[in-house]
């Protein structure tokens, strides 16, 4: 049992580290110059959270997700970027739960797309609060289309990685 706990801690820490690296990679990619949409991101960090959710446990995934957002905001962001990221991350987490409950009918592709779409919805809600204006919702349709594309790409990455079964009994 002790071994199991240590392994779980190590896996969580490793996934958190990878998630932070991917977030950083995303931040330095000049994606916003190609796609002029606020919040259009690859969502690579969600790969780690999804893998954690389905191979370690949902609780660990929540920890990894919240810790990543908190640490990234602490290192590179400010309060308003934290609000955006945390709302998006929590809604994406909700998407993972929906995916888990409907696991029989959906694969990682669907789960990833759903969670990306919910992430964008969360960002728009946070944006409406921060800006005090609902104008930002006019970006949502396009963001949803991008979430499908990026969600699909993430699904294609998650599928083989999840098969590795990182968390196989001790």
């Amino acid at each position, binding site marked *: 049992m002790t071994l199991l706990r240590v392994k779980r801690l190590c896996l969580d820490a490793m996934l958190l580290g990878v998630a932070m690296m991917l977030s950083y990679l995303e931040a330095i990619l000049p994606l916003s110059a190609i796609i002029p949409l*606020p919040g259009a991101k690859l969502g690579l960090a969600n790969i780690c959270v999804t893998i954690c959710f389905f191979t370690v446990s949902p609780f660990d995934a929540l920890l990894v997700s919240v810790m990543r957002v908190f640490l990234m905001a602490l290192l590179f962001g400010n309060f308003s970027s934290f609000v955006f990221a945390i709302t998006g991350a929590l809604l994406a987490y909700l998407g993972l739960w929906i995916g888990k409950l409907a696991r029989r*009918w959906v*694969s990682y592709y669907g789960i990833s797309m759903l969670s990306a779409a919910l992430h964008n919805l969360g960002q728009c809600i946070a944006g409406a609060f921060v800006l005090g204006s609902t104008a930002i919702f*006019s970006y949502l*349709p*396009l963001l949803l*289309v991008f979430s499908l594309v990026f969600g699909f790409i993430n699904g294609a990455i998650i599928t083989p990685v999840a098969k590795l079964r990182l968390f196989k009994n001790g």
Partner: protein
Amino acid sequence: MIKGIKAGDILIAGLIILIALAMLFCFFSDKGQDGNMLVVSCNGAKESYPLDIDRVLTYQNNGYTLKAEIKEGRAQVIYCNCPDRVCMHSGAVSRVGQTIVCLPCKVTLRIVGEEERYDFIAG
């Protein structure tokens, strides 16, 4: 087909596309029409400017400066010192429903048509 895709995945993708299309239809049903007012929301406070009078608007908020220009019926962010510059990359807007948002500055610019009236008109 890609291996491993299930029926639910297609359902999810279809639903998201449907929602996106429905939202597009709601927001831009009168798109194509040229708007005649620019509504600027800065930190929640709204101001309207007619598009037929050329002018440069300067906003300072949240530690950033944003300059928007109204010229020949089009509005554009010409200068902003925010980190991502999404607002500048958005280009010029002129049609009803088109929007430019600068998140770091907390400024939104939105084109509206004749029927949308706001409480007061500044300038």
